[in-house]
């Protein structure tokens, strides 16, 4: 079957941190996760904006909790996309969230479950959005399941991500510190540099001071990429716009031909686990689109 943007839809969950997607693409929907402060539950982005979330996080010492969308939330999105023959449903790593299980459960009760393909991005935040964007680029010129399969495989193997945290507190509290547990060392101005590999938070390097952390991003980004219009870059930050801007400039300076797919704020759900001050750099070389 020839898959196009007219017959194929894309569904991402809100941890893709790409809330404006449905405005940009008619065939996209975003299904929100939930963030909870005590007994008050909000739909990620829809009922609580990142700005309001970080303000609340600063003001109150409450610990927010998060939960995956219900299968019903996905069912509603899939039903709304009834006009499309196929749906690619691209999600946060199954090891970080049960979101994809909700999506699968919803797909399972559709009259034709094979209409929906759930895809585990193996990652989070802009990495989900960038994979979905890569699929969208192929849909716009016409593609096949095989091509999309190859793309996903390559994305999971090759896409780059580095992020650094202000504190490990949030990752620890949410139980998502992964293999970086015990590596925290919150002292001596240490900046941990981390990545997500196969759905797990993995330590990359510890350096002291913000300047060295930034240099480390630059070194790793340069070592793993070459300058090309096919190089796609994403930047995400949790209430740290200056740091995000520094990364934008870093990308423009070192890889002037690259395309910056998106610069985004981490939404309430991802922000609740990463904590304010987090900043991440994402990249993927996509010559096939």
């Amino acid at each position, binding site marked *: 079957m020839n898959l196009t943007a007219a017959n194929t839809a894309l569904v991402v969950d809100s941890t893709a941190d790409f809330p404006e997607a449905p405005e940009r693409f008619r065939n996209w929907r975003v299904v929100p996760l*939930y963030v909870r402060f005590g007994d008050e539950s909000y739909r990620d982005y829809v009922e609580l904006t990142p700005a309001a979330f970080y303000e609340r996080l600063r003001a109150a010492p409450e610990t927010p*909790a998060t*939960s*995956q969308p*219900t*299968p*019903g*939330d996905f*069912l509603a999105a899939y039903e709304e996309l009834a006009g499309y023959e196929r749906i690619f449903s691209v999600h946060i790593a*199954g*090891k*970080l*969230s*049960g979101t994809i*299980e*909700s999506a*699968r*459960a*919803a797909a*399972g*009760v559709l009259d034709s479950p094979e209409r929906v393909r759930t895809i585990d991005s193996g990652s989070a935040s802009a990495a989900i959005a960038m994979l979905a964007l890569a699929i969208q680029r192929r849909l716009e010129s016409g593609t096949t399941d095989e091509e999309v399969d190859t793309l996903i495989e390559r994305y999971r193997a090759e896409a780059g991500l580095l992020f650094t945290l202000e504190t490990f507190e949030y990752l620890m509290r*949410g*139980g*998502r510190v992964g*293999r970086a*547990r*015990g*590596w925290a*060392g*919150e*002292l*001596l*101005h*240490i900046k941990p540099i981390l990545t997500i590999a196969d759905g797990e938070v*993995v*330590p*990359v*390097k*510890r*350096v*002291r*001071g913000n*300047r*060295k952390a930034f240099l480390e991003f630059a070194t790793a980004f340069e070592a793993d990429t070459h300058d090309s219009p096919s190089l796609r870059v994403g930047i995400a930050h949790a209430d740290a716009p200056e740091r995000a801007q520094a990364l934008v400039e870093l990308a423009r300076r070192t890889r002037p031909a690259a395309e910056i797919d998106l610069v985004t704020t981490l939404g309430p759900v991802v922000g609740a686990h990463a904590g304010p001050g987090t900043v991440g750099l994402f990249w993927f070389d996509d010559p096939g689109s």
Partner: protein
Amino acid sequence: MSELETVRGLARAALASLEASRQRIDDLNVYPVPDGDTGTNLTLTVRGVVEALDATSAGDRAALAREVTRAALMSARGNSGVILSQIVRGAAEVLAGAGTVDSAALAQAFRGAADAAYAAIRKPVEGTMLTVIRELAEEAVDRTADSPADLLEALVRRGEDAVARTPEQLEILREAGVVDAGAAGLVELVRGIAAAVAGAELPQPAKLSEVPQEAVHLEPSQYRYCTTFVIEGEDLEADALERELERLGDSLMVVGDRSALKVHVHTDDPGAALSLGTGAGIIEGVEIADMRRQTEEREERLLEAVLPRVRCAVVAVAAGEGNRRLFERLGAARVIEGGQSMNPSTADLLEAVEATGQAAEEAVLLPDNPNVVLAAGQAARLAGRPVEVVPTRSLQAGLAALVAFNPERSAEENAAEMNSALEGLATGEVTVASRYASVDGIAAREGEFLGLLDEKAVVAGPSFPEVARAVAEGLLAEPRDLLTLLTGQDAPPLDGLLGELAEGHPGLEIDVQEGGQPHYPLLLSAE
């Protein structure tokens, strides 16, 4: 009673039973993500079904089954909720098509539930809700001759048994000393339904004693010590004692009679609590548990369950309690006491390296002193596995090297990263001359402070802040990002030194830690 009313009653009973155990189930939650919300998620999921049933006007059983299925899907919270929604779906689909709902139909419903749950999860994991629903289905199929009430009662027993066995099936549960939270929740749900069918009061939830002490204490207390004791005496006044204890902490419990009282309190000052006790009578059976330690130990066990063995460990030599803690917090597996005038032997070093053999495949050794470098090399050669020595000549260098440590890399890769982290590091010390000495052309009288830069004496004098300032300024002669100060045992105050340094070097990040090392009132490094 109409069929709808019956179903409403059963769903409410299931919800009430879950509500009663919600907190306990939250506390058990370590898998798949230890975020402590399984009880809450299951409760919210069932509550959604109850609300949909309250609102429905479904005319026949098939329509009712569809609505229940959809309500469970809509309200399914968390992983456990999603699995539960599939269990509900599987059961509802069978019951929609059944004639009379007898034990045979119930058995088929449990079978349908188990099949739907397994089918929905891509990689089913045993030792979870899945195992329990499967075992319930097996039990039900064997008991179709029983009445529905007897059948359900037998299922509760089988479910409890299956839950108790979950730690045998899932490593992380065994390590954490808990049963699976979702599995426990499923049994509470069945317990509620069984009680309603039998027309019984809702039974007590499973005993709290199933939950290990530390899981009970997981609710974060702002206080550190769980303190319990018994007071024996005459005319003991529980109320008066309670009022005084209240000021010391929380989770307070004072029970007993006028001749004996049992006291339980979470406090940072167990001594004060005991004093209140001795003021009232004779105390005995004193138990003081460090809850923070318990939490740390639990996390440690979880950590070991998640990370069975790392690639590389670090063994470091350091003097001073504060420095030891710094090394440990930065990830050193073993810290050997030692330093100037107390050098550990090759055997000491080797023993510490061997001690990391269980936890890590390889190791890096940080001697942190010029006189330990050789012994470290010997120990590395004698060790039966790859051990690299990064020849750090000071404690400050050891810390800088340790920052670059990554447990997932080999010893060789770590050594390379650590060596490159040491490039551009400058170190300094302030020590006390034990007698008149002239070193590198700098003369210091007995008791005076002697300042060194990269192991060379550069300044001496009677004022600690002045010598310290001269060493610090020497380190900052070229532009630096970071200055680290480790204060020694009985070190004189730094006075205004920090303020002056900050003012004179804008943009410099300064970190002061209590190192506690002997002989050196101050160790410094800049990078």
